[in-house]
């Protein structure tokens, strides 16, 4: 059923989709990046390398670049070490309490970004809970111990292991247990099996996660900004600083371009690695992995001890935030828990005080709008690129992946410099500084993930269903509406939920583009971390964090939790009630019941 360009041009529905898509791609994906290039290399309309020269001579900028690469390299090691360990501890080795451990480790799946950074700062910062405990034991130590590169690496290491839990864990579960049994039969020890059989099979996944981690380190914003201090500034906070002053926007653009270029190179490397080394089970009947006992008692104790120590590091921040969200500002400030200080006032305030609720409403509004637009729009686009495979749709697909290969900083900066003056492409209006620009950036940022998921969902629908519909007389729109959409709807809903979740506490894009009067949660939470004296605002951010964790937790459960992937693959079941009602009238029955039944049939068929 693959269509040619000619067939595409014959379909009015897809012609409209193609036209809107073309406008959107040119206006928001291509043109802003070209403008950014122009800002750097052609500031006065002529080729110039002045921005690069100025950047090279800026000690702060060069240091931030160095720090970013250093952070990326260190994280590649630490995140893998911790990530692989926690997956092996919970999925591969027979460790007591593995399910509880997994829940602790998985806390970063519902608690990440600026929220996580703020949580760690609350715990380990100058007046943090852990810092106060440590000061009791070591009175001479500095209260500001948790700052600089160490703090950034520490926080980001634990923040970035989500990929391991999801992807490395999944890959590990697919290792054919018979290969382990075979190695065991040949006398291999647990360590030998792990080193020579299991880990080599997982290396492509490790490479992929390493590159994602490297990219995460390279473009980190929240952690270096909140915890880096003056001595450890990285590229993205520097871009933000430069972008705020019009005279240094060319430097911001140059740094963003370097970031973008590095991302492209690394993603190309990742693609190559993926192509070259995906290992599949060659077993015809793979057997599920069974947990391995650690035979060496000393090693067993060490692994258990490390696993529980890591559990404490992972679980303490969210647990304490939940607890302290029920205490007053004084308790939060003193990091002490007194039964008398427990209160519901923080929650009451968030839900009754309009100013406290406002950032939440802004975030929900932005997330809902961006999610709806991107999922609804891409339902048509994904179908278009999946059904009509020709050079034009292939080019469109590549263009739609631009946000995936460029850091959000660069996308945001591109939008700022492109739409800070009137542009005919958007009806001669200035977008920078408006409410719309952040929503547009959110939509752009979510395009690649949404497109990939929806395209995969459409591709998973057998061609024969369309052929069956065609032979039964259904046109392409009827087939799309009645057959394809109901099948891909669960995937679309799951993608929408994940997008919504992810945007709810966004900071990286919002900090560049948010309207001053419509500050989303991410910015409010970040601002709370920079207050030297803790105020009621901090208490509110704890409530925000708890609510965010609850929303994310529920979403993750709905999407991933109810049986493996059931949220994605669950199909809408027909309504047996309506059909049974319809069937209750026998053909021999009188006319009236028959017509009633016919009405029932109509309802059923309308569904």
């Amino acid at each position, binding site marked *: 059923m693959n269509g040619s360009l000619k067939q595409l041009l014959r379909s009015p529905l897809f012609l409209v989709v193609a036209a809107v898509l073309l406008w959107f791609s040119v206006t928001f994906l291509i043109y802003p990046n070209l403008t950014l290039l122009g800002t750097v290399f052609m500031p006065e309309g002529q080729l110039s390398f002045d921005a690069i020269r100025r950047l090279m001579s800026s000690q702060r900028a060069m240091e931030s670049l160095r720090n970013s690469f250093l952070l990326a390299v260190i994280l590649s090691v630490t995140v893998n070490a911790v990530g692989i360990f926690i997956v092996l501890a919970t999925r591969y080795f027979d460790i007591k309490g593995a399910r509880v451990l997994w829940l602790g480790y998985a806390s970063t799946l519902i608690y990440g970004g600026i929220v996580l950074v703020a949580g760690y700062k609350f715990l380990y910062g100058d007046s943090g809970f852990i810092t106060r405990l440590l000061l009791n034991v070591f009175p001479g130590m500095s209260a500001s111990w948790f700052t600089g590169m160490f703090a950034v690496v520490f926080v980001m290491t634990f923040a970035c292991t989500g990929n391991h839990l999801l992807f490395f864990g999944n890959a590990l579960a697919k290792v054919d247990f018979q290969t382990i049994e075979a190695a065991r039969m040949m006398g291999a020890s647990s360590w030998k099996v792990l080193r020579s059989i299991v880990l080599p099979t997982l290396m492509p996944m490790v490479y992929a996660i390493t590159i994602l981690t490297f990219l995460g380190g390279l473009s980190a914003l929240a952690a270096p900004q909140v915890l880096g201090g003056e001595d450890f500034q990285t590229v993205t906070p520097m871009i933000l600083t430069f972008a705020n002053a019009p005279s240094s926007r060319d430097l911001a653009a140059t740094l963003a371009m370097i970031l973008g270029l590095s991302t492209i190179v690394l993603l190309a490397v990742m693609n190559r690695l993926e192509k070259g080394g995906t290992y599949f089970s060659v077993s015809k009947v793979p057997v599920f992995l069974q947990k391995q006992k650690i035979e060496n008692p000393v090693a067993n104790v060490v692994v258990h001890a490390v696993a529980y120590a890591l559990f404490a590091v992972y679980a303490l921040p969210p647990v304490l935030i939940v607890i302290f969200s029920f205490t007053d500002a004084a308790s939060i400030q003193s990091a002490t828990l007194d039964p008398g200080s427990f209160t519901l006032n923080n929650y009451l305030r968030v839900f009754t005080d309009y100013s406290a609720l406002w950032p939440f409403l802004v975030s929900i509004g932005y997330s809902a709008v961006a999610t709806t637009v991107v999922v609804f729009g891409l339902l048509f686009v994904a179908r278009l690129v999946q059904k009509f495979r020709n050079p034009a749709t292939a080019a469109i697909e590549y263009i739609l992946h631009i946000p995936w290969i460029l850091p959000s900083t660069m996308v945001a900066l591109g939008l700022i410099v492109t739409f800070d003056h009137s542009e005919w492409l958007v009806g001669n209006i200035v977008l920078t500084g408006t409410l719309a620009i952040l929503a547009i950036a959110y939509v752009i940022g979510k395009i690649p993930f949404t497109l990939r998921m929806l395209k995969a969902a459409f591709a998973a629908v057998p061609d024969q269903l369309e052929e*069956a*519909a065609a032979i*039964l007389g259904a046109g392409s729109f009827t087939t799309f509406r009645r057959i394809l959409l109901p099948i891909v709807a669960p995937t679309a809903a799951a993608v929408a939920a994940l997008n919504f979740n992810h945007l709810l506490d966004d900071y990286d894009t919002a900090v560049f583009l948010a309207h001053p009067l419509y500050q989303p949660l991410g910015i409010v939470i970040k601002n709370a971390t920079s207050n030297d004296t803790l105020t009621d605002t901090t208490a509110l951010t704890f409530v925000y964090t708890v609510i965010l964790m609850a929303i994310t937790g529920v979403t993750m459960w709905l999407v991933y939790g109810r049986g493996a992937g059931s949220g994605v693959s669950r199909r809408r079941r027909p309504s047996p009630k309506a059909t049974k009602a319809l069937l209750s009238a026998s053909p021999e029955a009188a006319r009236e019941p028959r017509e009633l039944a016919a009405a029932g049939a109509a309802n059923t068929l309308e569904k």
Partner: protein
Amino acid sequence: MITFENVEIRFGDFVALPDYQLTVEEGEFFTLLGPSGCGKSTALRALAGFIQPSRGDIRIGGKRVTHLPSHRREIGMVFQSYALFPTLSVWENIAFGLKVAKVSKAETMERVREIAREVNLSDEQLAKSVTDLSGGQQQRVAIARALVLRPKILLLDEPLSNLDAKLRHQLRAQLKDLQQEFGITTVYVTHDQDEALTMSDRIAVMNNGRIEQVGTPQDVYTRSATEFVCNFVGDANKLSPATVQVVMRDGGSHLDPARPAYVRIEKVRIEAADTAASAAVPALAGRVSSRHYHGVYSSYRVETDRGMLRGILQEDGRGGFQPGDPVRLLVNPDDVLQYGVSRYGVAS
């Protein structure tokens, strides 16, 4: 009547059907039989309107339908996977085409009920989701969905291949009964020779996009027109030239040892070596090298000094022959099928 007139179907540079010519008579159960990749499904899909021929014409009832969309060809189709719409109930699946054709609700009800009765789907099953049905029930829904629009032609694309062996045997008979009851012209695609032989009025055996033979099941089996058909349909021994020479001595003068020769395994008579020899039928002496028990019969491999031959014997409970037993093989010259010189050269 369906006709393919010099139809050519290409996929890029690959020609799937080079010059396809075929006629299917009205009301017959016609099977396209062949190995995977021979082009049988391509021919069916072209008839359904899913593939456009690059040359030639397809006619249904004399009307040219080559460029007509699928739904205007008055065709019903049962797909290999059944292609039931998973989000719709059984009822909704069957009624889908009627709804699209804007058939009145009352008539839709009546026709769905009627076809459901024909294919033995209960009211309870009609209310279910198609994903709750067994393979056999799903197949019946697919047939009902295809027939409810009262098409002139029914296309069946390997509809039994997803079922277990026992159910497959049961449904063969049901499919054939349904076809006869409706009197509908049916084109059936399969690679299973058993299915083709038991269900079809006529069979077209295909190979590499070409039709090797069209005929009744008996024709195709007993008078296989080409070496390919002989090999593909049924089970045959390829006779060595030395064996052919033995067969030639007693009434087989019409045979030519230089040409490929075959004999169906059930036509090879196996006798104990000490049985009184029949003068009329050429015989070869040999020893049983292996025996495979199949319940109703056993198949034997017999090593002779002219090469290895296979034969079968009905099981009579007396134990049959054992490996190593001396036996005599009888081959009637009239049962030998000979073809032009093989593309692989003369068999040794």
